[in-house]
């Protein structure tokens, strides 16, 4: 992706490759204003044929239902290509939102990048 680093709208988005995954690192707030940036990033990756995506929420200070909706939309996109969309998050305040909405059962959730890498190695 040419635009690996995007700023503005209170959300910074970085994309990097980690093994077989495209890792989207988010920093800032994901709400109705900034979520389209994340949606566009996921869409671009899928359009480029990258169907295994991990979204790192460790540096996200705020996430609302618009952000959740974008993640669910992304999951549907990659599933359509037999891919996967996982989450990295160890923040209780963010994990709580996933629990309330029942999305902990929908997304693979890793506590850290190390946990993701270890699971990949073991697979």
């Amino acid at each position, binding site marked *: 992706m040419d635009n690996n680093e995007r700023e503005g709208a209170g959300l910074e988005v970085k994309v990097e490759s980690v093994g077989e995954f495209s890792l989207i690192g988010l920093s800032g*707030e994901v709400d*109705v*204003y900034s979520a389209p940036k994340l949606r566009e990033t996921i869409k671009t990756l899928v359009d480029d044929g990258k169907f295994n995506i991990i979204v790192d929420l460790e540096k996200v200070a*705020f996430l*609302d239902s618009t952000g959740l*909706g974008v993640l669910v939309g992304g999951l549907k996109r990659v599933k359509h290509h037999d891919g996967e969309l996982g989450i990295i998050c160890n923040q209780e305040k963010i994990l709580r939102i996933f629990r*309330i*909405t029942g999305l902990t059962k929908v997304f693979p959730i890793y506590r850290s990048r190390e946990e993701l890498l270890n699971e990949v190695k073991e697979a």
Partner: protein
Amino acid sequence: MPEREGTPFELEIPAKAKYVGLARLLAGSIARRMHFSEESIDDLKLAISEVCTNAIVHTGNGEGEKPPILVRYLAGKGFITVEVKDQGPGFDPSCILDREREGLISKGFGIPLIKSLVDVFECDSHPQAGTTVTITKFLKPEKDEL
């Protein structure tokens, strides 16, 4: 807004997505000064964000000249109430209950989230007359005070 005593604050924001953060920020600041726990502050900020997002989306999200959103905060003894009033097309609020009963709120997480985050959720809406959503969060004693 319920008939309770407290200190009122008002914020009028354009019906545009980029102003939701402002309503959230003010709610967090007021709640922090009232010594709400960090978890309750996070809950309140998320709930207000959801309510304002709904108001802005239903008002047209800045497309054309849209009337502003009025956010009124009431900081009282042991509670904070926030009223979000839009001048959008409105709807029949009973449809929220009907959709919940039928399990049809699958497209959006907003309303179920709001209800799980606050102590009181009220919605007053009428077709062509705008919508007013009021939420209240009570200050809970710290665990070591119980």
